[in-house]
């Protein structure tokens, strides 16, 4: 697609999502028809988005295409501006949206067959608005379009969160999501308005120019305001509390979109603010920015995976892993911020760090989307999210199980799949950073690398648990026992993302071409493929030291080929020298008849790590024994264990208590007399005027 056809592409995309939203009207006649048409339109919109993004990414580098929008407001000109960064995130959104649109209709029909047409209409409308708003947030060319689409994205996803099952838990999750998201949006609003007020216009070019002559204090304050706003949306610890509640509550393909894509829009925002809007004209970014992001990312990665380990709700576990992966992305982003324009080696290392972050962005979208869709298949066939009540599904849902295993290997950063590639790049960037910064700074970077290694190991433990308990062994309940394989269209949606995981893992060099435009455009330095795939498309290489010294080069393709060849040889060995058919026999259970109660549970699996990290989890348990007369004969035993989220108990509960105390105090002062209230209003007005007067001076 040539550049000139970009307006057509965006128009087509908007038209498709718009048509999808309108198709909810069809639910008057048939809910099924509305679901089908709505998702088909979303699919068309996603394909159009893919076309637009590929057109920009593979086209002439370094060009930004702007497209004015109709004037809706007298005070601001709305426009779209698609550059490399926008196009890359549009690509990520479109890739997952394609899978979600293929998967969606069958899932919604199978998961909630009793849903009325009103609910189906709402879901179709919200899904299309959600996708459209996400696509246009990253394409926005001015602050107003950005904020409007941002808000639309939040509201539409809220509708989807509360739409699935009408119960109190979902409603509470939705409310918490709304409150947190709007807190974040408020911070963004302040940051944007401070810039627009200086620029006197809303478009990004004017904001960029206005930010050029900011003093460093204001610049840093604005950055931290924006970071706070975006971090809330991205679910960075300690602003993550809404995420593990809201993401599982939504229908599974929407969970895939929220976890895989919506969080990435916040990453887009951070990158846009740090490297583009607020970046100084020349010279490096203030050091406090990058270090903050690096530390936040490291914390999120480790704590996210640690909390995920103790979750037994399949979708909640996946939601916590999103916190972890956002952390890994932010490690790369933070490192790029630290290194940008600060190193003598020509900026290659900052490019490596940013490449790692962007690659992990698309990788996480692929494998997390896949895992959420597979969890959705389990959910719609068993109606159970607690993995302790599942088990034995690999024999009943072989495709879903295989695809989940693939996603699990990918997310645990194990070769030869895509998770390993981006973590390898992150490690290389960290190592390079550590060898450049001497002293405490280098030590922080190295510590962050060690934490990243810990994160990978814990993620592998977590997914061994999630896959083993859910899919292997014996079914623990009749829900699991009577499960059947998911419909073909759902498997097709998953297979699309699985193919992406494999392709990005085995031949990542080709994806680097797509990262050229965002890295070169953002850092004004060397492009991703020039740095990382300098030795050919099948080889990834980085130089830790100054250029010229021996770098490190690996080839995922050759390793994958080696693995396949060795597996074929091992398969021959596995058949053995005696070609007798395998016998089957029951598992030895110490002489008792084997039942599902012999299977190791998820709680038991995670127990050693719960004790090792007890300082963090503060685990509590209550065991109630019912004995029959003597303590030696147990009739029943009841176990309940809880693990706390430290940021929840240490921060949010305190804030909540503070608000309660404050509102009690206010209630004591509210006498019910109108004069008193008028007095308060006058007092508030006086203080406001006073502050305004001070500010004017």
């Amino acid at each position, binding site marked *: 697609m040539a550049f000139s056809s970009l307006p057509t592409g965006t128009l087509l995309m908007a038209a498709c999502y718009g048509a999808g939203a309108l198709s909810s009207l069809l639910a008057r006649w048939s809910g099924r028809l509305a679901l089908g048409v709505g998702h088909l339109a979303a699919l068309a919109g996603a394909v159009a988005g893919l076309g637009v993004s590929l057109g920009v990414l593979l086209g002439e580098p370094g060009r930004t295409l702007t497209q004015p929008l109709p004037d809706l407001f007298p005070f601001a000109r709305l426009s779209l501006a698609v550059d490399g960064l926008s196009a890359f995130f549009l690509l990520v959104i479109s890739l997952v949206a394609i899978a979600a649109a293929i998967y969606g209709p069958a899932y919604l029909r199978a998961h909630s067959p009793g849903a009325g047409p009103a609910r189906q209409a709402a879901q179709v409308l919200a899904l299309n608005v959600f996708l459209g708003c996400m696509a246009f947030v990253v394409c926005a060319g001015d602050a107003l379009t950005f904020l409007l689409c941002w808000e639309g994205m939040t509201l539409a996803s809220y509708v989807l969160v509360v739409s699935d099952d009408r119960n109190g838990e979902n409603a509470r999750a939705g409310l918490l999501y709304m409150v947190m998201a709007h807190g974040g949006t408020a911070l963004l609003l302040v940051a944007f308005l401070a810039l627009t007020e200086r620029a006197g216009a809303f478009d990004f070019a004017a904001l960029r120019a206005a930010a050029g002559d900011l003093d460093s204090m204001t610049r840093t304050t604005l950055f931290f305001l924006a970071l706070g706003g975006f971090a809330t949306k991205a679910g960075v610890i300690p602003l993550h509390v809404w995420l593990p509640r809201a993401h599982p509550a939504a229908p599974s393909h929407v969970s895939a979109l929220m976890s895989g894509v919506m969080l990435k829009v916040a990453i887009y925002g951070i990158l846009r603010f740090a490297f583009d809007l607020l970046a100084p004209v020349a010279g490096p970014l203030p050091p406090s920015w990058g270090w903050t992001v690096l530390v936040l990312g490291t914390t999120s990665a480790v704590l996210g995976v640690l909390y995920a380990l103790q979750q037994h709700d399949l979708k909640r576990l996946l939601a916590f892993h999103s916190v972890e992966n956002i952390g890994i992305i932010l490690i790369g982003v933070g490192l790029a911020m630290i290194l940008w324009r600060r190193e003598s080696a020509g900026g290659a290392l900052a490019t490596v760090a940013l490449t790692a972050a962007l690659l992990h962005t698309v990788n996480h979208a692929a494998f997390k989307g896949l895992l959420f869709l597979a969890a959705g298949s389990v959910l719609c066939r068993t109606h159970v999210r607690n993995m302790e009540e599942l088990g034995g599904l690999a024999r009943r849902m072989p495709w879903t199980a295989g695809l989940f295993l693939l996603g699990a290997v990918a997310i645990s950063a194990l070769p030869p799949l895509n998770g390993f590639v981006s973590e390898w790049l992150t490690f290389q960037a960290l190592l390079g950073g*550590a060898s450049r910064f001497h002293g405490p700074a280098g030590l922080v970077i190295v510590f962050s690398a060690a934490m990243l290694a810990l994160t990978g190991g814990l993620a592998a433990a977590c997914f061994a648990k999630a896959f083993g308990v859910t899919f292997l062994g014996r079914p623990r309940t009749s829900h699991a026992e009577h499960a059947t394989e998911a419909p073909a269209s759902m498997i097709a949606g998953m297979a699309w993302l699985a193919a992406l995981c494999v392709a990005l893992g085995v031949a990542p060099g080709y994806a680097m071409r797509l990262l050229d435009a965002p890295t070169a455009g953002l850092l004004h330095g060397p492009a991703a493929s020039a740095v990382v795939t300098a030795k050919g498309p099948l080889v990834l290489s980085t130089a830790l030291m100054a250029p010229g010294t021996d770098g490190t080069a690996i080839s995922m393709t050759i390793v994958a080929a080696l693995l396949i060849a060795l597996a074929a040889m091992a398969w021959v060995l596995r058949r053995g020298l005696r070609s007798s058919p395998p016998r089957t026999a029951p598992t030895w259970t110490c002489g008792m008849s084997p039942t599902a109660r012999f299977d190791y549970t998820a709680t038991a699996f995670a127990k050693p790590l719960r004790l090792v990290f007890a300082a963090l989890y503060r685990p509590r348990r209550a065991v109630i024994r019912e004995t029959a007369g003597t303590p030696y004969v147990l009739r029943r035993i009841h176990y309940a264990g809880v693990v706390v989220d430290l940021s929840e108990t240490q921060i949010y509960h305190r804030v909540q208590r503070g608000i309660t105390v404050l509102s009690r105090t206010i209630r004591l002062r509210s006498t019910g007399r109108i004069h008193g209230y008028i007095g308060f209003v006058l007092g508030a007005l006086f203080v406001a005027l006073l502050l305004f007067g001070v500010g004017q001076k």
Partner: protein
Amino acid sequence: MTGERELGLVLLEMILLVLLGPLVTGIIQKLKARLQCRQGATILQPYRDLAKLFRKGTVQADTASGFFRSIPVLVLAATVAAGALVPVLRAGPPAFPLGDALMLLGLLALARFLTAVGAFDAGGAFGGMGASREMTIAPLVEPVLMMVVFSTAVAAGTTELGALAAHRGTPWILAWRAADFLGFAAMLVLLPAETGRIPVDNPDTHLELTMLHEGMLLEHSGPGLGCMVLASHTRQIVTLGLVAALFFPIAADGAGAADLLLGAGAFAAKILVLAIFLALVESSYAKLRLFRVPQYLGIGFVCALTALALRIL
């Protein structure tokens, strides 16, 4: 600096590691037996065990899914692939890019992950218990191992093991600094954990109270078990080879037959020394309680962090 290693050499080294893996186990077993004043089996016993396993039929748990049969295949393939990344006969990067130390650790982690997943499939409590313990220890070992690798990689500027060894060269062994001593100390602490030996794990027992790795193999049988056992022999020699490449990069420079023989002799000597170390540790210490292991690994973490700090500061 030595030259590059050709494809044939890399494959030869990989095959050599797989073939010699059981021998290292045999030597350690023999040494242990002699230290305990027993005669012990011959050092070729592991080969006989493997030959017997590959001749036997398979019994599979009735609850196991289709994944169960492919687990040993994949575990063996991943472990052997890791073996291709270790320089054995000569230092120097492979002539074509393959993988570095991070890839090696990743492949070993893949093998471990698949073993743990397979342990769930039979539906017995022992498998799950073994998997749970193994996956508790592994995430604690991995970051420390990574830091030891980083402490040498920061000095050499690459994480590719062959290039790392070549960069340092043989004379470097005489110029060990404090960071090297500390890194090596951390590595010695980690070795028993990574090879599944006392004081972290006990390879000779099938008691549910003590086992980690063996617990996951209980339900495998016949050639499948053979693959898993061969994989753990290979894993052991690969780990020892990693230590040798990081800390004793002694190798002949040339590519002639005599140089390769010299390299092979040097490698055998290095592995033998480390095997004797493992046997000594295993004979003189008791297995730690599972919840003591994190503290034990903490020693390694402190050593590795200090080594890294000394390199960077």
